[in-house]
């Protein structure tokens, strides 16, 4: 075919230079099917062509790492011969177009990544960002929130994997481009991780799961372009999820993987059959030949182009040992699934696609995977920074502290998210030992004494003000959160959500953020074992805040020593680990109370953070602390209030050392801090081990009474009934949806 023109290339999201590279790789003009295959494999979503040079700088190794980036998910050793397999992924674009299905299929996709590795998925989390739920686009945003939450619930609840935690925030730049990042963690035998490999010429290649339809064609390409008002017309590119089908696939695959008839498995997610065949081949230096006539199809008359590019959900590609076919087929039959042999492994390194015996595509796998373009895109420090980084905090009008606290507690980002997590089955599989909303999520590992703490964190506002430091703070916060539960952080995964990388300012934000993640992870001995990049998060030319989201997994050696955020009993002492500085830049306080997104985000000394994390893990491990809560969004005032919530109204009396006025003392979001409590007689030991760890620690008050009473430098600033504050906090989020309640 030689009718490749500019319009055709444009529809495929390819530029003329990329087309020339395709011609060079093939030594001829591509067929239309081949062009389609190249276009999805070379899309930003699949090829990481803009981000790859930066991602290479991330630390990915460590003594516990069993699998770093490059497979379906990463894996770390958690002892007892077990591995924690986990990853985070975005489904931003589909979730904006069709919130329920977009979010649901995002959950389905990340679950497949985990069980493909031979792991039993045991926990889901999510990180969500939307525009404000009030104002001009409030109604639309509320519909998106409802749809996304229902979609996550609908999929996770049905398949029976608990959604144990997450985070949600609301900021203007996400109005036309919400972020839906989903995380999944599974447990596998450390010596039986399954790889996505196509080894052994002649071994059969099986297709299992849902039939292929015309849905989702060019989904990967869609996720690699900006949005405009015509985006709603792209709805057919969003897939429809079938959690029951995935449940069958999950159980059947895990049953198969208990034996040794399999060679490699890969799920068909973005770029579907194309990606699965070419990547499995490329990883093993082999080829795969398939005939699309064997691919189970949902509708008639599908072309090879459509079959290869379809992103129909709940499909897997398996390479099994020759001679073991019957055994494999029987397992899938047991689960009422049809396993169709669509082809076989070859040793010629080619992806060869036939249609009823006629070759319609023949491409070297390495050209599709390793041969994808790699761009060193131009970068430029954005001009906006000079303006937004300047903040004269001393000139801000003073605020009544208690009123300020109540307003922050009522902001949807800080308010209780029960409306959300109540829709998620967060208890199924009976491992959830810290219930949703009580701190970092913690699931026990049955058959061992251990548990895993998990947290997903990001802060778009900080990253907007300073991408490098904001990204470092995201790593630190996620690690600190799991440490507060008593978990030693052992591995991380990241989801990098940014705007259009073809703009030098966006590329600069991206590069800075990746630097920040790398710096923080190196300092905290935290390997990044995988993740996902989502670019082109722009609608009508407006980019989102640069938003790296970190998922950190921590190991709790003794599950019975797990710590939650809430006060445990009257008379316990309250200790502040870390120091508060005059740091109101980028805070929730500044945004909610003063309507400003300005200043420098809080400073971060990674040595201090490392010391704090070690201290928290040690103190929890020896059973010294009774509660621990990371001090971040909303500052120390909000942190103390949250420690008092869900206790049945137990209060506290606290006196804080003043830092430039009450506002800065109460609402500064200085990093590397935590509020912990301990039995009164343990206070000296606690302060002693803090000193040994080099962490500033100060006894600031006691748990007790029914009032939340916080003084600064001896002057009472906040004095209210815990229940009054809690009412604000627990009703604020629901109030946006009250009209629909019956």
């Amino acid at each position: 075919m030689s009718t490749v023109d500019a319009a055709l290339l444009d529809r495929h999201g390819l530029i003329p230079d990329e087309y020339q590279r395709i011609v060079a790789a093939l030594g001829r003009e591509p067929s239309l099917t081949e062009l389609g295959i190249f276009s999805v494999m070379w899309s930003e979503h699949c090829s990481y062509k803009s981000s790859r040079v930066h991602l290479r700088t991330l630390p990915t190794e460590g003594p516990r790492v069993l699998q770093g980036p490059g497979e379906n998910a990463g894996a770390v050793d958690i002892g007892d011969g077990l591995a924690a397999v986990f990853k985070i992924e975005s489904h931003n674009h589909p979730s904006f177009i069709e919130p329920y299905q977009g979010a649901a299929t995002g959950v389905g996709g990340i679950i497949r990544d985990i069980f493909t590795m031979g792991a039993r998925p045991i926990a889901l989390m999510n990180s969500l960002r939307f525009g404000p739920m009030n104002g001009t686009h409030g109604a639309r945003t509320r519909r998106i929130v409802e749809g996304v939450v229902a979609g996550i619930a609908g999929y996770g609840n049905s398949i029976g994997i608990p959604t144990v935690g997450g985070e949600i925030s609301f900021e203007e730049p996400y109005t036309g481009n919400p972020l839906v990042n989903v995380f999944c963690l599974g447990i596998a035998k450390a010596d039986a991780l399954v790889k996505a490999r196509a080894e052994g010429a002649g071994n059969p290649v099986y297709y299992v799961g849902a039939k292929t339809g015309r849905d989702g064609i060019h989904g990967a390409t869609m996720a690699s372009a900006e949005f405009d008002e015509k985006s709603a017309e792209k709805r057919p590119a969003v897939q429809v999820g079938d959690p029951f089908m995935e449940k069958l696939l999950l159980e059947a695959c895990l049953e198969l993987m208990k034996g040794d008839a399999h060679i490699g498995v890969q799920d068909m997610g973005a770029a579907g059959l194309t990606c699965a065949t070419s990547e499995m081949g490329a990883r093993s230096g082999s080829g795969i030949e398939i005939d699309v006539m064997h691919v189970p199809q949902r509708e008639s008359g599908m072309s090879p182009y459509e079959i290869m590019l379809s992103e129909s959900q709940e499909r897997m590609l398996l390479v099994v040992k020759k001679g073991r076919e019957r055994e494999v087929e029987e397992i899938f039959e047991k689960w009422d699934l049809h396993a169709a042999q669509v082809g076989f492994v070859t040793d010629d390194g080619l992806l060869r696609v036939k249609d009823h015996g006629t070759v319609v595509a023949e491409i070297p796998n390495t050209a599709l995977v390793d041969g994808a373009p790699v761009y060193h895109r131009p970068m430029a420090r954005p001009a906006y920074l000079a303006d937004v980084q300047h903040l004269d905090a001393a000139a801000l009008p003073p605020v009544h502290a208690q009123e300020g606290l109540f307003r922050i507690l009522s902001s949807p980002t800080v308010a209780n998210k029960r409306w959300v997590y109540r829709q998620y089955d967060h208890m199924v599989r009976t491992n959830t030992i810290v219930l949703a909303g009580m701190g970092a999520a913690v699931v026990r590992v049955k058959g061992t004494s251990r548990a895993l703490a998990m947290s997903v964190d990001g802060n778009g506002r900080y990253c907007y003000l300073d991408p490098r430091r904001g990204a470092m703070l995201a790593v630190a916060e996620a690690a600190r959160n799991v440490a507060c539960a008593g978990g030693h952080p052992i591995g991380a995964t990241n989801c990098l959500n940014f705007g259009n990388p073809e703009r030098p300012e966006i590329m600069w934000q991206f590069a800075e953020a990746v630097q920040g993640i790398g710096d923080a992870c190196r300092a905290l001995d935290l390997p990044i074992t995988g993740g996902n990049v989502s670019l082109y998060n722009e609608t009508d030319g407006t980019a989102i805040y640069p938003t790296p989201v970190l998922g950190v997994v921590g190991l709790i050696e003794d599950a019975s020593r797990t710590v939650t955020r809430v006060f445990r009993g009257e008379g316990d002492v309250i200790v502040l680990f870390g120091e508060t500085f005059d740091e109101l830049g980028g805070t929730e306080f500044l945004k909610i109370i003063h309507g400003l997104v300005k200043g420098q985000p809080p400073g971060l000394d990674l040595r201090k953070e490392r010391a704090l994390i070690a201290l928290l893990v040690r103190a929890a491990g020896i059973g010294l602390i009774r509660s621990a809560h990371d001090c971040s969004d909303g500052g120390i005032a909000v942190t103390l209030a949250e420690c008092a919530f869900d206790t049945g109204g137990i209060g506290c009396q606290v006196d804080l050392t003043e830092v430039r006025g009450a506002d800065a003392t109460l609402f500064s979001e200085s990093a590397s801090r935590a509020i912990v409590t301990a039995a009164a007689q343990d206070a000296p030991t606690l302060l002693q081990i803090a000193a040994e760890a080099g962490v500033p620690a100060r006894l600031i008050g006691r748990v007790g009474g029914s009032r939340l009473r916080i003084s600064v430098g001896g002057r009472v600033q906040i004095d209210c009934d815990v229940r009054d504050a809690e009412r604000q906090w627990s009703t604020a989020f629901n109030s946006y949806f009250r009209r629909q309640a019956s």
Partner: protein
Amino acid sequence: MKFAVIVFPGSNCDHDAYHATKHVLGQDAEFVWHKDTTLKGADVVILPGGFSYGDYLRTGAIAQFSPVMTAVREFAGSGGPILGICNGFQVLCEAKLLPGALLRNKDLKFHCEHVGVRVEQTSTPFTNRASAGQVLKLPIAHGEGNYFADQVTLEQLESSGRVIFRYCDNGGRIADEANPNGSLNGIAGICNDRRNVVGLMPHPERACESALGSEDGLVLFDSVVASLASSGALMA
């Protein structure tokens, strides 16, 4: 004593029921596949929570036709104790082993949380170790738990003492605010005429260990163990 945990392809609380009976209670337990036609000599049958066959049509609607249900019906007919939890309750209603139906929650949303559940009757194999009026803290996790029956059936259930569990507040009071899904009369669980088949929406198997936030569900399993021990099943 042997528990059979029925596994439909979309069951997802099967492992939880197995864990609670086998590892927490220390009883014998075995999974029974939906295509099986026998119950493998079990003394008690649990129909666990989940989404039996995807439940896109109506919860439990297809499960009633699965091969294993013939054996379950026979077991019920012979007076064997059967506990249907959540989706298992829905399946028992669809299979007409229990009356009524579970409609969508009144607010149309899935609810997962701990709720108060009051034991109304102790004269069933699953509640004989509880005391009447005892308040259990149990998790619910369902989108379709809104119990409905026609007026005649409802009156029969009430007058014959077949409402076994009701949603209540912490003090044991039955009130609309404590009813998470709109169930008629706050009904959380019922039994059949013969009282050997019990279905409830809350999840006792998720409340058998203090690490999970409640051990109140144990009483249902302790009850059936005690009930069978006294009836001599253990001697078999």
